[in-house]
C-alpha cells in the first residue's frame, strides 16, 4: 500500500512538472523567436542600406560606361582605350549583329590572364542577355555549346537581368527579353550579365547598338570588389582594441562595440568583407539578403551577438521548475506521512480491539460455563414459580452471552490477517445437527419477527469440517435475514453435499434463501466489502457492516466460498456457502 501511495505521489509531482516545463520551454522559445524576428526586422535595414549602395555603384558604372561608349565613333579604338585607361574595365567585347565576336581578336589578347578571358569569351557571348538576332543566335548557341569542350569558367549557366540605366528611362525599363525580340530595341537597351570565369562571378555590362550589334564590357572583378568594400561601413575601432587600450580618450573610440556583424559573401559563400562586431559568428545568420542586380549571387548576412537575443540560459527555468517540484514533493510527503500516521493509528486501534476481544473471550467462556452449571444445578431444584423464572433469566444470559461470543469471534475474524488459512479446526461433524442447533438459536427471534424458517438437510453422516466456520457464516446470514426480511416473510435453508464440478471433490453446500427485498444488481459487488451498509440511514436496522465480510473471510479461510447468487428461488437474496469436505485424500489446508 505505501508503495502504491509513493508511486501516486511521484506521479502527482512529476505530471505538473512535465507540463510546466513544456509550457515554459515553449513560451521561452516563442518569445525568443518573436524577439529574433523583431531584431531581424530592425537590423535588416542595414542590409538594405548596404545593398542599395552596391546597386547604386553598379548604376554609376553603367552610366559611366554608357557615356564612354556614347562619345565614340570608333568602337574598336574605344574598347582598346577603355581597357587601357578605365579602372573598372577589364576587357571590352564587340559582337556584330550576326552574333560573331569581332573584338577582341587573338592579337588583342596577349598574356596568360588575357588568354584565360579569351577562352571564356565564347561562352560568355553565347549567353549574353542582348542576343543580336534571336533565331540565329539560339541556333548557334545550341550547336556551339555542344561542339565546344566545356571550359572551367562555364560551370554555371548565365544569370542576367535587363537593367534600366537612368538614361534609358521607361523605355529601357520596359525592355525585356521578349520586347527586344518583337520590336526594334531602343538605342539605349542595356543589360547586366553575371558570368563565372576565372576567380569567380564576373559582371558584364552589355549595350545594344542601333545596328543590333552589341558591346560588352567585362568589369574588373577586383576593382568592383574594392569599390564595394570602400562603400561599405567601417570597422569601428573599439572591437579591435585590447582591454589595455580602453583607457584612452573616449573621443577616439566613441563607437561602442557593435552587437552585430554584417558580412558580404560571394557566390561560393566566401567572405569578402565584414564589419561590425569581430566575433566569429557561431550561429546561423539572423537575416540574409541577396545583393540586387547584377551581383545576385552575392549575399549580405547579418549575424548578431548572443547579447541582443533573449537569454537562452535554461537555468532559471530549471530552478523554478525544481522549486515547484520541491514544493509538490514536500506537500506529497506531508500527505503521505499523515496518511501513514492515520493508518498506524487505525492499526493500533484495531489491534487494541483485537486484544480486548481476546481478553473478553475468557470471561465470556466463564460466564457461559457458569450459566450452564447454574442451569444444571437449577434442574435439580423443585419445580415452582421461582425456578421457572430463574430458568428464563438464565436462558437470556446464555443467549446474550452467545451473541457476545459471536461478536467477539467476528471481531477476531476481522482482524485476522487475510489470505492465511489458519485457525481452521476440522472435526467430524453432523452438519444437520449443527444446523438445527443454529436454527434453534434463532427460532425465538424469528418467531417474534413472524418469519418462517424451513430447513432441509440432506447430509446424513458426519463430515470433516470446522463447525465454528459453518456457525459463523450461518449466524451472520440468518441475522441478516432477521434484520431485513419483513414480517410474514420466509427463509429456507438447504444443506447438501455435492461434488466439485472441476475437481470432483466432495463439498458441503448450504443455500440460504429468503423472500425479502433482496439485493439490487448494482449493490451486489458491495455487500461483501467491509463497513459497507446498503442503507446507512437512521431507520435502517442496526449493524456494523462487517457481518458478510466476516462470513466470507471465514469461508475462504476454510478453503471455501460464500457467494451471493444472482437468482433467488423466492425472490429475495440467496447466499451460497460452499466448504470443501476433509477426506483422507483431501487434507485440510494448513
Amino acid at each position, binding site marked *: 500500500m505505501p508503495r502504491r501511495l509513493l508511486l501516486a505521489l511521484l506521479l502527482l509531482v512529476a505530471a505538473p512538472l512535465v507540463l510546466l516545463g513544456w509550457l515554459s520551454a515553449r513560451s521561452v522559445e516563442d518569445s525568443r523567436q518573436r524577439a529574433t524576428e523583431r531584431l531581424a526586422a530592425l537590423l535588416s535595414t542595414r542590409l538594405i542600406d548596404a545593398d542599395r549602395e552596391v546597386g547604386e555603384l553598379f548604376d554609376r558604372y553603367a552610366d559611366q560606361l554608357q557615356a564612354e561608349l556614347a562619345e565614340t565613333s570608333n568602337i574598336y579604338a574605344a574598347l582598346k582605350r577603355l581597357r587601357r585607361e578605365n579602372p573598372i574595365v577589364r576587357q571590352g567585347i564587340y559582337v556584330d549583329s550576326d552574333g560573331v565576336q569581332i573584338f577582341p581578336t587573338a*592579337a588583342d589578347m596577349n598574356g596568360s590572364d588575357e588568354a584565360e578571358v579569351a577562352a571564356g569569351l565564347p561562352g560568355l557571348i553565347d549567353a549574353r542577355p542582348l542576343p543580336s538576332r534571336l533565331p540565329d543566335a539560339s541556333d548557334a548557341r545550341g550547336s556551339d555549346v555542344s561542339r565546344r569542350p566545356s571550359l572551367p569558367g562555364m560551370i554555371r549557366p548565365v544569370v542576367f537581368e535587363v537593367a534600366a540605366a537612368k538614361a534609358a528611362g521607361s523605355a529601357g525599363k520596359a525592355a525585356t527579353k521578349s520586347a527586344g525580340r518583337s520590336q526594334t530595341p531602343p538605342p539605349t537597351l542595356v543589360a547586366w550579365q553575371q558570368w563565372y570565369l576565372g576567380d569567380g562571378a564576373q559582371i558584364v555590362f552589355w549595350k545594344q547598338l542601333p545596328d543590333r550589334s552589341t558591346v560588352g564590357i567585362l568589369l574588373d572583378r577586383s576593382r568592383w570588389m574594392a569599390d564595394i568594400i570602400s562603400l561599405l561601413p567601417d*570597422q569601428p575601432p573599439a572591437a579591435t582594441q585590447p582591454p589595455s587600450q580602453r583607457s584612452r580618450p573616449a573621443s577616439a573610440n566613441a563607437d561602442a562595440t557593435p552587437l552585430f556583424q554584417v558580412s558580404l559573401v560571394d557566390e561560393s559563400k566566401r567572405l569578402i568583407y565584414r564589419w561590425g562586431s569581430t566575433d566569429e559568428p557561431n550561429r546561423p545568420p539572423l537575416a540574409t539578403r541577396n545583393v540586387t542586380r547584377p551581383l545576385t549571387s552575392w549575399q549580405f548576412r547579418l549575424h548578431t551577438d548572443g547579447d541582443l537575443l533573449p537569454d537562452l540560459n535554461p537555468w532559471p527555468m530549471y530552478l523554478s521548475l525544481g522549486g515547484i517540484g520541491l514544493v509538490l514533493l514536500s506537500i506529497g510527503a506531508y500527505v503521505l506521512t499523515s496518511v501513514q500516521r492515520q493508518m498506524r493509528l487505525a492499526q493500533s486501534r484495531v489491534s487494541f480491539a483485537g486484544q480486548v476481544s481476546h481478553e473478553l473471550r475468557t470471561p465470556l467462556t466463564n460466564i457461559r460455563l457458569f450459566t450452564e452449571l447454574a442451569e444444571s444445578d437449577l434442574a435439580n431444584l423443585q419445580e415452582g414459580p421461582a425456578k421457572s423464572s430463574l430458568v428464563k433469566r438464565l436462558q437470556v444470559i446464555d443467549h446474550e452471552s452467545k451473541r457476545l461470543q459471536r461478536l467477539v469471534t467476528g471481531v477476531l475474524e476481522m482482524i485476522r490477517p487475510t489470505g492465511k488459512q489458519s485457525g481452521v479446526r476440522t472435526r467430524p461433524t453432523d452438519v444437520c445437527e449443527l444446523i438445527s442447533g443454529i436454527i434453534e438459536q434463532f427460532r425465538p427471534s424469528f418467531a417474534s419477527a413472524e418469519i418462517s424458517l424451513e430447513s432441509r438437510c440432506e447430509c446424513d453422516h458426519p463430515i470433516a469440517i470446522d463447525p465454528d466456520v459453518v456457525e459463523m457464516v450461518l449466524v451472520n446470514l440468518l441475522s441478516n435475514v432477521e434484520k431485513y426480511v419483513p414480517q410474514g416473510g420466509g427463509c429456507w435453508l438447504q444443506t447438501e453435499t455435492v461434488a466439485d464440478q472441476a475437481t470432483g471433490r466432495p463439498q458441503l453446500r448450504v443455500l440460504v434463501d429468503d423472500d425479502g427485498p433482496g439485493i439490487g444488481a448494482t449493490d451486489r459487488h458491495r455487500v461483501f466489502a467491509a463497513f459497507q451498509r446498503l442503507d446507512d440511514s437512521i431507520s435502517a436496522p442496526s449493524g456494523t457492516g462487517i457481518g458478510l465480510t466476516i462470513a466470507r473471510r471465514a469461508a475462504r479461510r476454510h478453503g471455501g466460498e460464500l457467494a451471493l447468487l444472482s437468482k433467488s428461488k423466492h425472490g429475495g437474496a440467496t447466499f451460497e456457502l460452499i466448504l470443501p469436505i476433509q477426506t483422507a485424500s483431501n487434507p485440510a489446508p494448513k
Partner: protein
Amino acid sequence: MKSWNSIRPARLLAVCVAGFAVCAASPPSASAQQVSLDVGVCNPVMLAGEKQTNYLRIALTGSDLPQSESRPPINAAIVIDQSGSMSGQKIVQAREAAITAVRRLRDDDIVAVILYADSAHVLVPATRATDREAIVEKIRSVNAGGSTALFAGVSKGAAEVRKFLDSDSVNRVILLSDGQANVGPQSPRELERLGASLVKEGISVSTLGLGLGYNEDLMSRLAAAGSGNHMFVEQADDLVAVFQREFNDLMSVVANDFEIHARIGEGIRPVRVLNTKADISGQDIYIPLAQLYARQERYFVIEVEVDAGHVGDSRTMANVSVKYRNLISETRDKLTSRVEIRFTDDQESVAKHRDAETYAYCALQIANEKNVRATALRDAGRIEEAEQLLMKNSDELRQIEMDYGVQLGKVIKDELKRNINLNSAQSSIIADPKKWSAGRKAMRYEQSNNASQQNQRVAPPSKSPPSGGN
C-alpha cells in the same frame, strides 16, 4: 617657384644614344626639367633571311629634383596591418614609422591612415597634414589584434587617396603587412588586378612586407601591378628606415601619369614586355607606369619577333611616344622616339653593331625572368634545377660583363655586378630549407627591384653643365 628652371637645359638630347635611334622629343622648354627618353635595340643590325627575336629597350630617366623646397604634393594612404601577428615590437615600430613619416609631410600633403584586421577601418580619413599632431595622436592609439583583411585595407586606402586624387600630386597607397591575407579576397592575382586597376587612375601601390610571415607573391605582384615599390623588411627595427626610404621616393617624384606607347613596325610582332604586365593589342604596346622618381632610371624591355628581311633593307622597329605629367614644370609633356633595324648577311656586322648597353639591360631582365623561374622551380621542389639555373644566370651575366664591360656605363655595370653576386648567392642558399623562408622573400624583393628598378638611380649631375648621356 621656378627658380630651378635656370639650372640647366634638358638632358634629353644628350641621351638620344647612338645606334639607329632617332630622337624626336617634343621641344622642351629651354629651362624646364625634363624626363629623358632613350630607346635602344639590342641588335640594330640583324641577319637577313630568318625569323629572329630581338629586344627593344625603352628607358626613362627622371630629372633631378629642383634645389628648392618645392616638390609635388603627396597624397598617400598608409595602410597598416594590425592583425594579431603584428603585436609587440612590430606594431610599435609600425606606429613609429608612420608617425615619423607623417611628421615629415608638408602642410599641403594629404595623408590617410587605414587599419585592417578583421575588417578595415579608416583611422585617419584623407586629410591635409596641417594637423600633424592630431594624426600622430591617432596613430599612437593603434594596437594589434584580429585577422588580416588585406584586400579591404587596400580598398579603403585607395578610396581615401581617391578623395583628393589629383594629377599634380603623388598618389600612393602604402601597404604594410606581416601576414597572410585571410579575410576577403586573398589570391595574389586578385590583388594584382586591383593594383593594375588603381594604376589606371594614377594611384600607385607600394607594399612593405614585414618579418617572415607575409605572402611575398601577393605583396610583390601587387606592388608590381600597382607601379610602386616592394620592400622586404626582415626586422621590425628597420621599419622606420624603410618608411623613410619610401617617403623619400614619394617626395622625389618628378613625373607621373605616364602613357608609354610603343607602336611596333610592320613585319615585327610584339611578344611581351619582360617582367611587366603591359597592354598589347596588335602592334600597339601600352606600358603602365604611375610615376618616375628623381634621377630614377626606369626602363622596359620588349621582346619582339622580327620576320625575315632582305639584306640591306631597313625596317622601322618601333615608334615610341611617352606622354606624362611633368610635376616640376606642372605641364603635360610628350617625348617621342623611333628606332630602326637593318638587315645584313654579315654575322660580324651584327656583333659589331650590337648596342652593348641595351644588350646588357636586356640580359639583366632576361636573367630576372629566369630568376623568377628559379623560384617557381624551387617551389615545385626541383631544387637542383633551380640551383643550376641561378648559377647559369650568374655565369651568363658575368660573360656579358667580360665581353662588354668597357663599353658599359656605371649604372648598368653596377647592376650587372649586383645581379651576378645575387644569383650566385641565391644559388648557394636555395637548397637550405632554414634559409628559404627569408631567402624566398629576399628573392621576390630583388626580382621586383630588378623589374621596376626601384633603387636604380643615375649619378646626381655635377654642378658643371651636364656632359650628356652615357
